[in-house]
């Protein structure tokens, strides 16, 4: 699944990263707690979150997460957009709620990786 596929499935708006839309996403993680996200190490992931602050971008930078989906219509501010551009992290915003957005991507074959151990 690519970033553009995620945009289409979630009827989302691509706020940052039009040029990276063809990048492949292999796994997903949905959480508002950044330490839960940091406990999960996977390549080429997308993060779905309702939390909208600069530390979301920082967390994704540390994890090499390539795309963020802000659910419930949350919009990043200028500082977040600038940091995401600099770190090459795509940002999508979707009006769907977390549970629905995760379910829609799961239905199309995206998975969350192995259980936490």
């Amino acid at each position, binding site marked *: 699944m690519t970033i553009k596929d995620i945009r289409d499935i979630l009827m989302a708006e691509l706020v940052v990263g039009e040029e990276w839309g063809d990048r492949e996403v292999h796994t997903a993680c949905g959480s508002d*707690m950044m330490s839960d996200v940091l406990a999960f*190490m996977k390549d080429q992931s997308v993060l779905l979150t309702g939390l909208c602050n600069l*530390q979301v971008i920082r967390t994704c*930078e540390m994890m090499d997460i390539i795309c963020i989906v802000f659910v419930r219509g949350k919009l990043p501010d200028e*500082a977040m957009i600038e940091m995401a551009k600099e770190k090459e992290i795509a940002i999508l915003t979707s009006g769907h709620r977390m549970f629905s957005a995760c379910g829609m991507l799961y239905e199309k074959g995206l998975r969350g990786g192995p259980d936490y151990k």
Partner: protein
Amino acid sequence: MNNDIIVMTYEVPADDFTRAGEASSSVKGKLKKMGVNPDIVRKVAIAMYEGEINMVIHAFGGTIDVIVSPEEIMMILKDQGPGIEDIELAMQAGYSTAPDNIRSLGFGAGMGLPNMKRYTDDMKIESILGVGTTVTMRVSM
């Protein structure tokens, strides 16, 4: 990578949540440029970032030294904060003393110290109440 030992030192500012992570971001960029294995870079970045966030939330900031040698990367995080009363309890996944306003910012789930241990090959915490805490972490090359 050559055989030199490289030392990087950072000041972590107190109470500035928006700037938390700048030191970890800088270290990540430098390690990448040095050609360190990407998995090792990610482990160091995550462990240091969790530590840096802890220093901002709990300890009025502090200093971080990162020492890169051909064998390992060592991170020494030092603060003059209140200290950790019960280190064993603090290490339990889910245990947190972070206030609610920190939880609303996405941290304080009680996963910071367990994550730091998980991503490093060795972690040592020395803490004296009222004096401060030093966390030393090592990741082998």
